[in-house]
């Protein structure tokens, strides 16, 4: 009888967090958490993987994700290439030349032709998400002064013409664009996957670290944003010494070496 009422009169069963209904039904999920093993993902590590249930979904205009970030001393990395995450059809190779003439605009123009979405830091600790949609480019307003040496979570909800960003589950930006977000007209093509930052960004020393990339194949409600699990990663969960007084050069180098090894393996598998 309840099933009949659920489908005819009013929702009784809640099939996922935040959906209408008073009786939660466990087991039905359409989300996955990647990069949760307390190490840094390999350079340009693509998710979801082929065997994942979320593989094959179109992450263009109806999806959500949350990601835990930990940012250390930014002055050790190139101010023009502080890429955190991107969405594309294939890993993005390094530009032919990254020198003093390669500015933030050069970086955006380079990514524009190869990806459909990027999350990056400006030349200071302001975080921006940019969508390349059709021939247009839509930015979020910069989230100014993101925490340094303190873990925080960015959540993005994309719903057709609208995208909303949250910092530690508090809404910091929402934008309604004139048309549905679409694939870029002169850029990437094929199935869009999420990639961690490539090797050529955040150089010469990595300063941005990620953990708990939580992906949904649909827009999520605010209730889901605040109740998303796992909880925000601790600084030690990023696989780095949180001690700000020590530069952790040995830690970074070992992580980079490990990441390179994994990246080579993934590249081999993809080939």
């Amino acid at each position: 009888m309840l099933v009949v009422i659920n489908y005819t009169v009013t929702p009784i069963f809640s099939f996922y967090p935040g959906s209408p209904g008073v009786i939660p039904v466990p087991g039905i999920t359409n989300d996955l958490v990647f990069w949760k093993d307390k190490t840094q993902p390999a350079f340009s590590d693509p998710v979801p993987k082929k065997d994942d249930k979320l593989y094959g979904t179109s992450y263009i205009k109806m999806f959500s994700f949350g990601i835990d970030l930990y940012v250390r001393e930014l002055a050790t990395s190139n101010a023009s290439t502080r890429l955190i995450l991107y969405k594309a059809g294939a890993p993005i190779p390094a530009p032919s030349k990254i020198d003093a003439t390669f500015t933030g605009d050069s970086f955006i123009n380079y990514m524009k032709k190869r990806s459909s979405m990027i999350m990056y830091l400006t030349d200071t600790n302001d975080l921006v998400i940019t969508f390349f949609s059709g021939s247009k480019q839509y930015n979020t307003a910069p989230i100014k002064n993101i925490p340094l040496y303190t873990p925080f979570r960015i959540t993005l909800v994309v719903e057709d013409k609208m995208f909303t960003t949250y910092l530690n589950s508090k809404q910091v930006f929402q934008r309604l664009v004139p048309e549905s977000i679409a694939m870029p007209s002169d850029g990437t093509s094929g199935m869009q996957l999420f990639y961690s930052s490539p090797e050529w960004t955040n150089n010469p020393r990595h300063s941005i670290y990620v953990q708990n990339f939580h992906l949904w194949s649909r827009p999520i409600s605010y209730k889901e944003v605040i109740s998303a699990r796992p909880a925000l990663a601790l600084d030690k969960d990023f696989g780095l010494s949180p001690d700000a007084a020590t530069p952790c050069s040995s830690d970074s180098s070992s992580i980079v070496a490990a990441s390179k090894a994994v990246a080579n393996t993934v590249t081999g598998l993809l080939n």
Partner: protein
Amino acid sequence: MFLEVFLFVGALLLILYLSLRYGRYIKTQYQGPKQTYDLSIPETTVITPTDFTWTLAPCTLRFAIYVDASPKTVMTVDCIDHKAEAPEKFAPDCANYSYRPCKCMGTDCGRCALDSSDSGHMSKLLSIGEYVQLWASGYTNQNDKPYVPALLKIRTGLDSGQHYMEAIPLPTIPLQKWTMITIVKEGRRFDVYYGAKLQISKMTTYPPLNPDSGSQNITVGNKKWGGLIGMFKGTNGASYAPEVQADAHTILDTRGIPYINDPLPWSAFVLPKCFFGNCTGLPDVKPPNQFMVYQTNYS
């Protein structure tokens, strides 16, 4: 039996006495070897990395300052026209006396130095190497206020090859009055409290830089200034108004004076400057506040 009761009561009284006597010591939390330091002794190290390290992580530094004497400041200060994109001199804009980031020559910030000579109108009172510095101008009378009374000078960086010097303007540090100053840094944002009151909250243009290993000591003092500075305490973590308020309540009495423990109770009996007579022939009169003109009954 009587002896045991006597000893017990004696121990109890001793504990009570010690609690009352040293309660203030417990109450007045500070780091470093001493509670207060002479402001007129330059380059006095007050905090070493063993006590507290100023890093890029959110941190809070609290101290109290009592300015007894300072140089007299001229009304005008050197200013520059900030039409250039990045000024190559650390000086305020002539239009509104605001500072813009001074672009260093790569990582050499020599050209962004403030004039610390006698002719300069500002004096460095506190520093963590070149990375965080508190500068203050001297005092004038009410009709002749300095345009830039005090500032925090912060070294920031675009990347490893380009540094800047930026300023957080501050209001006047009151003269001849204890002032608890709390500097809170969270990312690029600096909050500065005088007592429990937030005076300024400002973001620098670029992220501040981590002091290198040789510049982590906190030093204070300037020979042109007189007074006391102390009650230093650094914490890793950003403090907000309620915490600063609670801290102020802990270390300050109702008149805003820190609970300073006099290590030598008999110092009150120190002989006056001219014990055997009036050496200068002038009365030793101090104004009650920084804006009041010196007055005396003597002509």
